[in-house]
């Protein structure tokens, strides 16, 4: 019996991807979590255990901002779930109608906002909603609703919701596409069998199609969750690093950026930044676990 020879080609094939992925993604991820356990005292890095997290959760100066960011982040996510995903499902349901004309055209057009950068989307909406330019008020005026207009991005009570809706506007194409694909993959036999039973139109959607596309809705939900909890760009572009007015649009991404890099007079603190990153990691991990073990396994039952 000879010793099994090393198959070098396997190592050569795997090495580049594994090296780059480990060095630039996995290692920094754990290193960031490790840095969260340190602090800088007189320009020396010292190990402080969980003290940074204690500061983050309980020290009034930090905890107020931290819980504010988390609360805002959940609101941001909730709006996406309540507005983006139903609109996406509805558009997909209409688009998947077998005899609809121009479906490809609608699909491509509705997807356009998704390909634009946050910089474009943020500034474009800022201009349109700006009271100086007056496009939004004059359009509301045209339908007799001018009294509804307010400088939405400048008001504490509306700013976050407005930004969430802008983000919904931008990303509605993704649930639309994924649900559309799921609807197309439903075999005709099932729908025909339903038709024989007298289930057509809207009730066919609720009773037959919706249960079958639930796994796709699950995937979209977790994608939305992960995307929302590391969102940053749109808020930064539209409201700046201070996430104004008065931090009312601050989410974890902008909070981490401010803490890590500093702003105005406050110096940047990489260790507190790492602690916030650690909290983001924990939240995303919990979300992904709930999805993988709680939702996905239960949904398998419906799969064809």
């Amino acid at each position: 019996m000879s010793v099994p020879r090393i198959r070098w080609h396997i190592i050569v094939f795997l090495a580049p991807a594994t090296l780059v992925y480990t060095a630039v993604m996995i290692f920094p991820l754990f290193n960031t979590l490790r840095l969260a356990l340190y602090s800088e005292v007189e320009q020396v890095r010292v190990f402080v255990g969980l003290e940074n997290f204690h500061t983050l959760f309980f020290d009034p100066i930090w905890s107020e901002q931290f819980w504010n960011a988390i609360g805002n982040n959940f609101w941001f996510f909730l709006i996406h779930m309540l507005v983006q995903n139903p609109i996406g499902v509805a558009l997909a349901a209409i688009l998947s109608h077998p005899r609809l004309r121009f479906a490809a055209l609608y699909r491509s057009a509705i997807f356009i906002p998704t390909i634009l950068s946050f910089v474009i989307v943020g500034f474009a909406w800022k201009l349109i909603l700006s009271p100086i330019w007056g496009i939004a008020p004059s359009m509301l005026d045209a339908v007799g609703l001018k009294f509804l207009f307010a400088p939405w991005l400048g008001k504490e009570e509306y700013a976050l919701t407005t930004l969430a809706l802008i983000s919904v506007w931008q990303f509605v194409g993704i649930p639309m596409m994924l649900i559309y694909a799921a609807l197309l993959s439903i075999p005709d036999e099932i729908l025909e069998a339903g038709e024989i039973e007298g289930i057509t139109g809207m009730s066919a959607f609720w009773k037959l199609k919706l249960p079958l596309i639930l796994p796709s809705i699950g995937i979209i939900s977790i994608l939305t969750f992960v995307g929302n909890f590391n969102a940053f760009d749109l808020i930064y572009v539209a409201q700046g690093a201070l996430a104004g007015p008065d931090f009312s649009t601050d989410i974890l991404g902008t909070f981490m950026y401010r803490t890590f890099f500093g702003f105005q007079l406050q110096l940047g603190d990489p260790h507190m930044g790492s602690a916030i990153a650690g909290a983001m990691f924990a939240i995303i991990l919990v979300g992904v676990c709930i999805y993988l073990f709680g939702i996905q396994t239960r949904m398998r039952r419906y799969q064809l």
Partner: protein
Amino acid sequence: MHKARTNPFNTMGMHGALILYTLIALFPVFVILINSFKARKAIFREPLALPDSDSFSLIGYQTVMRQGDFFLYFQNSMIVTVASLFFILLFGAMAAYALAEYRFKGNLLMGLYLALGIMIPIRIGTVAILEMMVATGLVNTLWALILVYTAQGLPLAVFILSEFMRQVSDDLKNAGRIDGLSEYTIFFRLVLPLVRPAMATVAVFNMIPIWNDLWFPLILAPAEKTKTLTLGSQVFIGQFVTDWNAVLSALSMAILPVLILYVIFSRQLIRGITSGAVK
């Protein structure tokens, strides 16, 4: 589905809803584009009117050309995106082939390890990434961005490509082995050409997020000579916020390349998403 249950009202309702949403989706882009070609007064007087001979003006574009180095930004974005896609596809396909083709100890574990990054955003490691880039002197170089985007794109690329590699016929590969081809030749000459459609899907998936990213250019490469188009337009617009002509023109110039790429690749992109590549 042959029953005629599409009454004309239904059809009209469906088109009505879709047209309404299409208008909502395109309206902001349309407003930005038309106003970028207007003189300042016309922008404010009639924001929804198309530019005519009276209101037409390129003053915004002239300011942008004079003040911002948009060609450099564009070039940087191009280099970063193309290089990242190249490495994602090359390294991703190689790793996917190893996982799909060979049985070896730890194959499953390796696959799981590489798949971890699909759900965990790389941004969480930013603090340590920046520290590493500073230590290696890569900060403010395009390489920093290329490395980060490659690492970010690899997990999904390996996952999608290995699914496709499993479908490549064994007979073909074995025929190649009998002819005495090396494993490398089999991979590059026989397998890669067959998974080209899957590679295109991976490429379009990664292209848009890389091109549009603001976070890493802002943190890793904010220097003037390494600004990407996304960061460059953000900084430029921030400075010219009261010069509406310049802002609108800069926005239009940032929209156009993406729009052109979309027109070229939209069929590929939509086919990729709808073919169930993200399962």
